[in-house]
């Protein structure tokens, strides 16, 4: 198989999926129980996971799998639990965007982020309680970045 061809398809399709996820997350910000947005983010994460696994981009597979697991739990609950969980989802999106950027520019597998994958997957783990924690600072930053990106037309 011509894996270079599939890498290009992966970059194009993932970029579209991530843009859709970004819009859906912004929708969830207004309504934490937006079922359509929840389903879409779940499907997009699942799709990116499948493509990344096919290309052996294990680091992307891990984070997208974590995001998929988290969204599976959100689907069960019927809503995103709270703004902290939403911020974590934004952080997952942000990391996937940066990983796809690395693949686009280098063709190589991006460095892994096992800590984020674990936080996303371990749905029962409590997020840090201090609003000034580095974890929340990172998620807030990711959220801001997604908002800015959502205001930029897709080329």
């Amino acid at each position, binding site marked *: 198989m011509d894996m270079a061809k599939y890498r290009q*398809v992966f970059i194009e399709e993932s970029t579209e999926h991530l843009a859709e996820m970004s819009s859906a997350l912004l929708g969830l910000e207004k309504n934490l129980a937006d079922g359509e947005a929840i389903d879409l983010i779940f499907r997009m994460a699942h799709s990116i996971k499948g493509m990344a696994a096919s290309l052996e981009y294990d680091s992307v597979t891990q984070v997208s799998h974590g995001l998929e697991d988290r969204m599976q739990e959100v689907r069960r609950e019927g809503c995103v639990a709270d703004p902290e969980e939403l911020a974590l989802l934004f952080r997952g999106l942000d990391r996937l965007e940066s990983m796809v950027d690395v693949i686009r520019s280098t063709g190589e597998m991006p460095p892994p982020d096992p800590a984020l994958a674990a936080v996303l997957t371990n749905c029962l783990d409590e997020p840090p309680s201090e609003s000034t924690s580095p974890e929340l600072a990172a998620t807030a930053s990711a959220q801001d970045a997604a908002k800015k990106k959502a205001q930029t037309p897709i080329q």
Partner: protein
Amino acid sequence: MARVLVADDASFMRQMIREIVESEGFEVCGEASDGVEAVDEFKRLQPDVVTMDIVMPRKSGIDAVRGIMALDPSACVVMCSALGQETLVTEAIQAGAKDFIVKPFKPDAVIETLKKVLEKED
């Protein structure tokens, strides 16, 4: 030559399955990018076998299997699953799917599974 309908919302996966099955001489007679389209295309094309993704928009792969079985109880559908979807695969088999293949796809395993289910149909 067996005719295959490929149902998956990811173009990436549809292209990959197409390449795998065509390399073995199967004909991809159609593609569907969601569950509703999968049922419609099944009705229109009457393929010998359908490869069906589980997670799709508008109608899930499992509901699409139910729709296809309602049209043709002898239809041959193979689910495309990922690790961790064992429960959903079981549900799909109960709905009438004949077998499943696991992502990431291994070309030999895909071909072997398709041949197996098609032989059973003969």
